[in-house]
């Protein structure tokens, strides 16, 4: 009865495979700890946000957002692996559990929050959609773009904003939809389109990729709100809280004047806000399920929000983006974090 035996074994194998796939109900924090690293979804290369440097190390504000979470859990900014994703792939990669956290300049919208099984944990960059055009074309304002051919990246909210904007203004346009932002730049540079549209921060980054960046300019119009932030899967509130509060910790650290350089001195601070932030007082870490000194380590290894911003996209970088909306609420911006208490 060899046949029967092999069939029985086969059936058992199939059965095993199916039950195994349903039985993995561990929390995200547990599975991350077990793996020993955080799996973070980023762009396939966008200067200032997530891009590998010449040594192959990932850098950027989205990358640092992930590193901060890794520090909070493992105390090690290197305990994170990056998965480069296109705009089209990113949400599915998170839904399917391929990555633990998506930090890939993703716009927070109602549909994504409510119907995709995802949660946005906060905003690490307030952006808005703009237009990049060739200076030679003689256009100074987006209202003059009637009939233009527009290069755009697939799977983004910008596709929808663009159609809305042109329809509201009664103008026509021809969209050329590419998979990656590199291809949109290539299409723009080759003259296939008159206009490249994306979030303004991205336009600055993409413009720096042109052979002659000074030949192109960003139009003054901002046609949408694009709050960009990290995303996690729904249904794991502990994980949601950790990712949310790591970013809040960085913003609070800037507000309280705690920096990478002075954080060691700040451990001796008698300001109760700083004591709670750095874990010298209270049990904030335990409430989240991470070590008590996670705040100290995050600021020590990654820095506060302002340092993260200035290092990656700030005025002194190639992107040269002013803080603008991303300044603290005390400095005229809208970066505001709930208190650590």
């Amino acid at each position, binding site marked *: 009865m060899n*046949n*029967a035996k092999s*069939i029985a074994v*086969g*059936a058992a194998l*199939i059965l095993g495979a*199916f039950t195994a*796939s*349903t039985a993995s109900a561990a929390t995200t924090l547990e599975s991350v700890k077990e793996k020993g690293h955080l799996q973070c979804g980023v762009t396939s290369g966008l200067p200032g946000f997530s891009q590998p440097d010449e040594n192959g190390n990932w850098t950027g504000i989205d990358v640092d957002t992930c590193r901060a979470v890794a520090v909070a859990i493992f105390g090690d900014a290197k305990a994170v692996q990056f998965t480069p994703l296109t*705009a*089209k792939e990113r*949400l*599915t990669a998170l*839904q399917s559990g391929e990555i633990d956290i998506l930090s890939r300049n993703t716009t927070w919208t109602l*549909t*994504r929050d409510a*119907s*995709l*099984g995802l949660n946005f944990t906060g905003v690490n960059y307030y952006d808005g959609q703009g237009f990049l055009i060739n200076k030679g*074309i003689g256009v100074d304002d987006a209202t003059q*773009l*009637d*009939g*233009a*051919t527009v290069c755009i990246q*697939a*799977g*983004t909210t910008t*596709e*929808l904003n*663009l*159609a*809305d904007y*042109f*329809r509201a203004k009664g103008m026509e*346009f*021809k*969209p*050329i*939809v*590419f*998979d990656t932002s590199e*291809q949109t730049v*290539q*299409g723009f540079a*080759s*003259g*296939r389109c*008159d206009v490249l549209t994306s979030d303004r921060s991205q336009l600055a980054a993409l413009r720096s990729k042109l052979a002659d960046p000074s030949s192109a300019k960003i139009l003054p119009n901002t046609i949408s709100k694009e709050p960009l932030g990290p995303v996690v*899967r*729904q*249904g794991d509130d502990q994980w949601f809280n950790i990712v949310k509060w790591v970013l809040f910790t960085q913003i609070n650290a800037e507000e309280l004047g705690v920096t990478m350089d002075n954080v060691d001195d700040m451990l001796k601070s008698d300001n109760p806000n700083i004591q709670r932030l750095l874990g010298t007082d209270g049990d904030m870490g335990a409430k989240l399920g991470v070590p008590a000194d996670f705040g100290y380590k995050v600021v020590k290894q990654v820095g506060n929000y302002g340092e993260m911003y200035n290092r990656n996209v700030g005025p002194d970088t190639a992107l040269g983006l002013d803080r603008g909306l991303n300044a603290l609420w005390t400095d005229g911006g809208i970066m505001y974090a709930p208190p650590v208490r």
Partner: protein
Amino acid sequence: MKKQTIDSRPAGPKPWYDPRIRSIFFQIVTLSIVFWAGWTLIDNTLSNMQSRGISTGFGFLDETAGFGIIMSLVPYDATMSYGRTFWVGLTNTLLVSAMGVVAATILGFILGVARLSSNWLVAKVALVYIEVIRNIPLLLQIFFWYFAVLSNLPSPRQSVEVGNALFLNNRGLYLPEPVAQDGFGLVWGGLVAAIIAVVALRIWAKKRQLATGQIFPTFKVGVAVLLLLPALAYLVAGQPLTWDVPALKGFNFGGGITIIPELAALWIALSLYTASFIAEIVRSGILSVSKGQTEASKALGLPNSLTLRLVVIPQAMRVIIPPLTSQYLNLVKNSSLATAIGYPDLVAVFMGTTLNQTGQAVEVVAITMAVYLTISLLISLFMNIYNRAVAIKER
């Protein structure tokens, strides 16, 4: 004494030793495992999606799409539904596939015959073409045509123009569009009449040839009828046709017909690539016809052209059709590489933007796979019908 019935046949094996019963048993077991596995997959997916708060169902197809598509054969604008984007993508896929199948077949047959040419140069040129093109990945060829060739065309303001009616630039090829005026129906009527006449002529000529052996020049007369009858109708109706000539307006040309470079690059690459495979299939088909057939046909006094048309090609077709079908299927499936250069085919529009805006990955991917499966099965079906028509008929 009781009458004993004696069965001379030996008693059959016990049911569990009966090979027939055994095989049925195992088939039932296998089938139920397959069904159970499929059902578990579906059930698992649904319950996992529900527990993760991902909405399911096909209701999203009625929601407003809200994004633009550069090219559509069916009327479309951003206020229409996601379901509509499906049809836009599908028709665009079918368009480039049909164009590719026609061009690849014509080019493939020419190359296949050229490869067997007795002219050394022609045969070697065909050989080099086939070996180079079929050994370079298709995606690279698409990129080559799109980024290296077509994007280097001049900008709209410096367009290459032919007779102030046809313009070529890096935004596409702009052609004048014929616009039918009142009375153009007569021309269509003329065309239909001509087609009916040609079919009738063919039937009559064949009958006459069978009866008397005389050959009627059906082809030449047929072409003449097809051209002259509609032309006559056109003149009688008072030339009811105007042309919408493209003109430079603002950024781009407006009016007329536009062939966007994405379509052109994909079409050229698909056609050239598939043609190289078809050429080899054609060559193998022709070589499969034994030399004796050609010699016999020559002995009967048939000229070269008739030998090829009446003796070699019909026999070669039997070998050519089945692998040709696979090439057509490949071409249709390869057209999904459109997404790499932004041609709005089914994968780029529906499985790209629509999937992303709605997040309904499982539904959208399932629909898309079902569509490709349907297209492929339909092509197979028609090619099998054709194959049966040309196959050896046993009499």
